[in-house]
């Protein structure tokens, strides 16, 4: 009966002992819930409660414990303990609250709770400090020349990195908690006046609708925000670089930063963006245009090289110049498998190698590269299992995939590559072209938060084209 009574009302009682008991019960006597009892003058009693590890111990000691203890010995008549204590705490965030749910969520985000005998309200002091690593160079999207700082797992740090770049009061940050169990902090950032109102509204609505237990990475939010779930193409951009986020915010994009992951979500994203590296803007525009074209080219090489080779070798012998044909056929003579089997085996072998390269411990890296390069490459050719041309094609495909700054678009190209290989094996160039048409149609049908994915290519936006496949230098006015 007693318990039910408490749960029903969810308000604090006046008795400090029952309040502490309730809190302990809520946390299931968790060992990191620390309760410190203090005796105040005039027989007053108080308790200082926090969760170890997520509070700043230094701040707790200097700004909460110390003032209260020093002051508790002063013998003077106190009318309202609660208000007086709230006055003397030297932390910036102090709230007086009488709802259990808010107290619990405060405790969980690192606040210190002060309960006082005879008061049915508690004081919450902001002492939260979540452990995070220091700012380091980002491990993806590296640049040769340009800013070297990257996001950390801490939301506050990340926002400060962006604030440092855009010192403008129009930078809006809206924070909410998402995830029924994890209650993860999510920050929505945008530039007031540059970002489109309807997109901001749309994003906020979709975030409010998220109905998930946990949010541990950007992809959880991504899945919830997607317009079109049945697609392999990335509809949002991920970045762990504050300079990329700042540049995108200034272009009117919206950024979502999530506590616990160094990757920020930038939306809406356009197809063309996945070929742009931050370095494009830090180098001469002619050079960066050239590099961007190389990247776009390698994307298509990555997607099409093996399919085109297969189409040529199985369906369109006539199209290969004669001398080249002789060389290729001489190599293929001793290979016992049909070209498609050969190609698929090598492609899959490379995918396995790539996966192994990511998952294996660093110390055994050289061993894998020796096995991969020597055994799979050289020995397979020498033994006559695969032709050298196939190894060259697969290697070209592999290398070209590493030029792209965003891993998600590479994954899309990988998926498309396998389907294209089957299309080519089935009906040659005709199959490749028809499937490419389907890809074009699919890309045209995609939308990222309501904005067509292929903007500025289709629908055409002339201003956007100046910074699409090539970057046309901006003249200073």
């Amino acid at each position, binding site marked *: 009966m007693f318990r039910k009574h408490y749960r029903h009302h969810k308000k604090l009682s006046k008795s400090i002992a029952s309040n502490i008991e309730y809190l302990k019960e809520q946390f299931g006597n968790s060992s990191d819930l620390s309760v410190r009892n203090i005796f105040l003058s005039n027989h007053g009693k108080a308790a200082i409660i926090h969760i170890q590890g997520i509070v700043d111990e230094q701040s707790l000691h200097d700004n909460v414990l110390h003032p209260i203890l020093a002051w508790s010995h002063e013998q003077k008549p106190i009318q309202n303990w609660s208000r007086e204590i709230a006055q003397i705490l030297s932390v910036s965030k102090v709230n007086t609250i009488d709802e259990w749910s808010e107290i619990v969520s405060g405790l969980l985000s690192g606040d210190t709770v002060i309960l006082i005998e005879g008061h049915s309200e508690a004081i919450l002091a902001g002492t939260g400090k979540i452990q995070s690593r220091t700012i380091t160079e980002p491990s993806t999207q590296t640049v040769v020349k340009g800013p070297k700082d990257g996001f950390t797992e801490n939301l506050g740090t990340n926002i400060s990195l962006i604030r440092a770049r855009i010192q403008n009061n129009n930078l809006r940050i809206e924070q909410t908690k998402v995830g029924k169990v994890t209650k993860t902090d999510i920050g929505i950032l945008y530039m007031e006046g540059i970002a489109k109102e309807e997109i901001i509204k749309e994003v906020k609505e979709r975030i409010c609708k998220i109905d998930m237990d946990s949010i541990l990475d950007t992809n959880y939010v991504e899945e919830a925000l997607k317009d079109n779930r049945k697609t392999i193409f990335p509809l949002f951009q991920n970045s762990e670089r504050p300079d990329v986020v700042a540049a995108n915010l200034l272009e009117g994009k919206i950024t979502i930063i999530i506590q616990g992951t160094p990757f920020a979500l930038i939306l809406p994203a356009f197809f063309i963006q996945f070929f742009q590296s931050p370095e494009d803007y830090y180098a001469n525009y002619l050079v960066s245009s050239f590099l961007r074209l190389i990247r776009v080219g390698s994307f298509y090489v990555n997607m099409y090289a093996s399919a085109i080779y297969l189409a040529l070798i199985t369906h369109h012998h006539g199209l290969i110049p004669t001398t080249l044909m002789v060389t290729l056929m001489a190599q293929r003579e001793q290979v016992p498998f049909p070209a498609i089997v050969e190609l698929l085996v090598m492609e899959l072998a490379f995918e396995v190698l790539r996966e192994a390269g990511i998952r294996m411990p660093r110390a055994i890296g050289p061993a894998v590269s020796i096995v991969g390069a020597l055994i799979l490459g050289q020995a397979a050719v020498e033994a006559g299992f695969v032709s050298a041309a196939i190894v060259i094609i697969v290697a070209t495909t592999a290398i070209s995939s590493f030029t792209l700054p965003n891993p998600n678009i590479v994954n899309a190209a990988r998926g498309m590559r396998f389907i294209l290989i089957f299309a080519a094996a089935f009906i040659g160039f005709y199959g490749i072209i028809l499937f490419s048409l*389907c890809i074009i149609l*699919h890309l045209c*049908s995609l939308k990222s938060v309501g904005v067509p994915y292929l903007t500025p290519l289709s629908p055409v936006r002339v201003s956007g084209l100046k910074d699409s496949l090539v970057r046309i230098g901006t003249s200073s006015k």
Partner: protein
Amino acid sequence: MPKDKIDGLQLFCLIVLFLFGTAVFLDLGSGARQDAWIVTILSPIAGLIIFAVYYRLYRQHPDLPLTEYVKKILGKYLGSLISYMYIIYFIYIASRVLRDVEELLISSPYAKTSIITLGICMVFALVYAVHLGFEVFARAGIICFAIMTVTLLLILIFYVISDLIHLENLRPVLAKGWKPVFREIFPVNMTVPYGELIIFTMILPLMKRKTKILKTGSMAIAYVGIYLTINIMLLICILGADLLERSAFPALAAVGYIQIGGFIQRLDPLIILLIVFLGFIKVGLFFYCAVIGMNNLFKMKPNVFTSYFMGGIICISSIMIAPSYQSHLDEGLKVVPYFLHIAFQFAIPAALLVLASIQRKWKQGKV
């Protein structure tokens, strides 16, 4: 009406792609021998007049496709019958174009492949396109337009570099007077491709309101006219009038001559690319119009069934319409223009326009 919105640039690209369609590969006006280019430069004028008629019709009912306003003008029963006939006509032309594409592919790169396999593959892609809706199709049109332009430019550059152009093939000009030229223009070159613009009466209601349709359409027709003229002049220069008249697919024959540095040769993939892209857009437009018409006529919501059904019919009839390529061509040159095209492209729209104007005048007089 569906809320798809097409803007001017998309309309331009679609009209250009549609008119290029199979025209780039077929021997347009080759009956006029070395004067074929005069045929291609004059027929757009006819095209402009035809488009103006369709535009007037659209202006009278800016929210409805052809198959719907027919019913308003001619009454429920006769109107439904005419719109049903139009749907059949669209399906028939779609299968004709598909047959052209199939024959082109069979003729050289896919000599050993069965013709129905090529058709089935194409139809699956088309059903996907129709399923995604017309707005997506129009947006993809811009990309296809860009790819087509680049490919055509590349081929043009290769022609020039490999020194294939013999201008003397163009002479003598008008050796047999104007008669063969006009015989080519009417009806064959007027109906294909320009008369086929009739399908845009189904598409114009999807346009954004403020688009200058007449201007965009005229620009597209002029662009196509100029390009086709350049194209046929090139073909005459490269192949000569005799070969042009004899070969089934002059573009394929001309590309075969390209040889640069002993390495750039056999550019057939570029031609296959063009064939598939242009054929896809053209069949796709007919297909899409037939589906819209069908859904409107039988008051169905857009559904997958109609498009699969329609796709199956187009695929099968593309093979059944003619026993061989030669008879397919004969039908296309001697039967279809006179019996079908003149009725569906000129007679019915013109009659509708006149009737609609009279009806409007009459109504105004009554009020």
